[in-house]
């Protein structure tokens, strides 16, 4: 559920293996040791998923409500899919095709909901709009005394998730609309199509690959969530994995369910590929006025502005105001301090885990990038791609996979004569959390670092080597200093993702080990709004940082695009 905001947003989800001719010519001969490192990291990253898929532990008992869980998962995916598609596409069209008051601000504000974790928006939404909340209370006192509407349903859950996840579709749809060759649109208009007809018959079909990629990202987030849905009493397959493990420690069943979740994930990737089809809708630039923005004036302009504002308000502004009010109200009262001892401990835990995870991921990312620069064949490049795959694996699968690996390690230790092995399987452990984070966040870290490596001319590497620098000195004196911008971005992205992340921690944490996200989740489950507000604001505040980085990157890309025209 934690929407990790990374540069990967603008890339298709499924890794593409396209041998780049230039890369081949630019590459060096490769060094066996460094190439082996990439392969080993790839194998380690893939290990949790592979163990889950191959895992056959005893005779699994499927939970009785498995059928219902599968149906619920499908319904939730469909609901969120439709919701994000309508919101994302509609808003993208609005800001691309029209100008209206505050449009230039709205373009970027509309990305902001990515900073709102669904597990925070979820409880704010329920506490505000559910039957016992202030809104329905007001309706009852003002209009109908008997009015009662239950929102802790699948529909309510789909609304909340759509509100926090639509920016994925929005960003990709906007890029697709903007990238489309102006001539195509002009041609459609000259053939007699109106603006709307040209949109539905030409632009939308042409944007299909991007929309598919955006939807796939959304689906992955839905599949990985099992915390938000708990507020709404919605039980998906991912929740099944979590509850089967946490309530009864039935390993076999949990593994079985996890492989079912993985099946859903594979279906999403396959679906994305299918939707993208053979179509590679890259268009030749072509000159033309293209999508000239038509100004919306008067009440229509205000309406457009309000539509954008409504999306941002519902997802970010109103929840933040409500959280702030709770926090202020609580601070005024004489209850226990919201940022007291328990919170401080959770914050420390979060910080330690985040820093370690960031260092782990970034060091691995830098080493992989370096190994690729030293030259690599197809195998090593595929291995490097594989290390980014964990990002598309639902948290529940990674969690169970890591636990399963831990069990194998324990078995091995018992076999060599250590009774009880590590003993960490049931109690959970911080190393397990770090391992899971490594699998999940190596992708974004590598993409950020790789972007910096890509800017480095191969001749710089080759010059350094011809001047007698071996791989280590090359890394320390040339590659390291030159990819520093990428390293900085990667550190920030991973650290903040790690603080936001909830499902993996819930599943793997040792008893009594709270992080800020767990702290928020537990207080929210107990409706302690006053206590939960300030920590939740801390998380949202941190999450704004990567969204800011993302916006900056998209803007830079926009400017380049504009410069080319």
């Amino acid at each position, binding site marked *: 559920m934690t929407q990790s905001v990374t540069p990967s947003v603008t890339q298709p989800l499924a890794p593409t293996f396209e041998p780049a001719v230039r890369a081949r010519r630019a590459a060096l001969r490769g060094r066996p040791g460094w190439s082996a490192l990439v392969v080993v990291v790839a194998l380690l990253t893939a290990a949790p998923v592979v163990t889950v898929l191959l895992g056959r532990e005893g005779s699994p008992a499927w939970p009785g409500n498995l059928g219902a869980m599968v149906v619920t998962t499908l319904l939730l995916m469909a609901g969120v899919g439709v919701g994000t598609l309508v919101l994302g596409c509609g808003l993208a069209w609005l800001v691309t095709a029209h100008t209206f008051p505050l449009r230039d601000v709205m373009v970027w504000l509309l990305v902001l909901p990515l900073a709102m974790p669904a597990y925070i928006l979820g409880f704010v939404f329920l506490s505000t709009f559910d039957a016992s909340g202030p809104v329905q209370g007001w309706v009852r006192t003002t209009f109908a005394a008997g009015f009662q509407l239950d929102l802790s349903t699948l529909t309510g859950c789909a609304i909340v998730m759509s509100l926090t996840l639509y920016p994925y579709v929005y960003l990709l749809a906007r890029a697709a609309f903007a990238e489309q060759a102006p001539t195509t649109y002009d041609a459609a208009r000259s053939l007699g199509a109106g603006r709307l007809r040209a949109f539905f018959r030409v632009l939308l079909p042409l944007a299909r690959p991007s929309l598919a990629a955006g939807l796939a990202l959304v689906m992955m987030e839905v599949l990985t969530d099992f915390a938000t849905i708990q507020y709404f009493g919605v039980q998906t397959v991912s929740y099944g994995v979590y509850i089967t493990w946490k309530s009864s420690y039935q390993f076999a069943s949990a593994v079985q369910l996890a492989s079912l979740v993985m099946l859903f994930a594979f279906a999403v990737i396959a679906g994305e590929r299918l939707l993208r089809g053979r179509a590679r809708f890259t268009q030749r630039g072509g000159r033309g006025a293209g999508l000239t923005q038509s100004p919306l004036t008067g009440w229509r302009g205000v309406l457009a502005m309000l539509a954008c504002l409504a999306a941002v308000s519902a997802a970010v502004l109103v929840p933040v105001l409500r959280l702030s009010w709770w926090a202020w109200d609580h601070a005024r009262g004489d209850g226990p301090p919201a940022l007291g001892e328990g919170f401080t401990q959770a914050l420390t835990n979060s910080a330690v885990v985040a820093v370690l995870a960031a260092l782990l991921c970034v060091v691995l990312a830098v080493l992989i990038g370096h190994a690729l620069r030293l030259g690599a064949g197809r195998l090593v490049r595929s291995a490097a791609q594989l290390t980014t795959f964990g990002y598309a694996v639902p948290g529940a699968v990674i969690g169970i996979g890591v636990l399963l690996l831990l069990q194998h390690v324990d078995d091995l230790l018992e076999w060599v004569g250590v009774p009880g092995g590590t003993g960490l399987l049931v109690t959970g452990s911080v190393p397990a959390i770090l391992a899971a984070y490594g699998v999940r966040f190596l992708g974004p870290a590598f993409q950020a670092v790789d972007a910096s490596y890509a800017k480095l*001319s191969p*001749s710089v590497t080759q*010059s350094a080597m*011809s*001047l007698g*620098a071996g791989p280590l000195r090359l890394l320390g004196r*040339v590659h390291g200093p030159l990819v520093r911008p990428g390293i900085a971005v990667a550190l920030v992205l991973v650290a903040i993702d790690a603080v936001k992340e909830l499902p993996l921690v819930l599943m793997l944490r040792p008893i009594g080990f709270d992080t800020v996200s767990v702290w928020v989740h537990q207080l929210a489950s107990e409706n302690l709004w006053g206590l939960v507000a300030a920590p939740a604001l801390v998380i949202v505040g941190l999450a704004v940082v990567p969204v800011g980085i993302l916006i900056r990157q998209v803007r830079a890309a926009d400017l380049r695009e504009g410069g080319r025209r």
Partner: protein
Amino acid sequence: MTTPAPSTPAPSTPALVLDAVSKSYPSAGSGRRGDVTAARSLELAVAPGEIVTLIGPSGCGKSTALRLIAGLDRPDAGRILIAGDEVAGPDRFRQPERRRVGLVFQDHALFPHLSVARNVAFGLQRLPRRERAARVSEVLELVRLRHLAGRYPHELSGGEQQRVALARALAPRPAVVLLDEPFSSLDESLRAQVRAQLVGVLRETGTTAVFVTHDQTEALSTGDRVVVMRDGAIEQADTPQRVFEQPATRFVASFMGDADFLRAHVHNALLTCEVGVVSTVPGWGDADVDVDVVLRPHEVALAADPGRAEPGPEVVAVDYHGAFVLHTVRLVSGQQLRSWQPHAVRHPVGSPVAVTVVPGIRPTLLVGDRAVAGPEDLTPRTDSAGYGTMSRP
């Protein structure tokens, strides 16, 4: 191995030797099958202090040759020796950082985060600190840039960056410096000047250098020897004069300067073609063979022939180049010849002209695609290996 440049007196150990070096890459397009041969049993020996230019059309394998020498790629077969050391062979491959090869690139490839002095010092890791500083200022003095030692690469002009790149490559005293199209990123106006400076430094230091270029003029004016490559093979490795005046193959003749080919006949030691007797060919007394003759535009003379009754050569195009005017003439047979004329001379298109060959030249004769120096070359050759590296006495 090809014989080294005639001017070099029997060198001790060649600075660089390529011995039957071959390399092929898997084909890039997924549709086509098979490999692309980028180096086809290359044979080359470069004497210490010699400057060699590698030239050929794009994709001819000249950059691959450079990569193989530098150790950026490993040959499939053959051996490479640098200063007598085998650095690549059937079961030996020395990594680029241990090869004593300097590299200078088109994009200069300076380290943007290091100052000029530290760029130059990068390759001097093994020297004690004091000697390092001395060597840095020594090579910077060499390229006349010592006053810029504290600057960063982005604060330098393109020509200055190129000189820093050369200084950096020279600092560790490499056995051979490889330059990959080092001037093509510079302005046309700067290029000649920077090239002269750079070659001056190489000469001054007695550095062995291999240049890659795609500019014929640059190749002819820069190197002691020009190596013309095509399809991964060496077509000819010779002095600039010989490559231009006595091309070994039809390809070299047309690639290194303009050339037209006319069908000709040798009989009684006389070479005749459609425009008449070209020259005598001493030593061909007994031969009676068909050949092709290579005629360069400056070897073709024109004269107006207004009163001609029967059909004859006719001007079909006139291109004004400033100092000279290029005339294209169609002969009766339909073949075309080009001729340089002084800028004041202009035969209008369509006008009849008389075509002769400038007296005193000894044009190259081709049988098939290969040049023949005398009748002894007419016997069909059986060894294909010697094909690419024919050098004549």
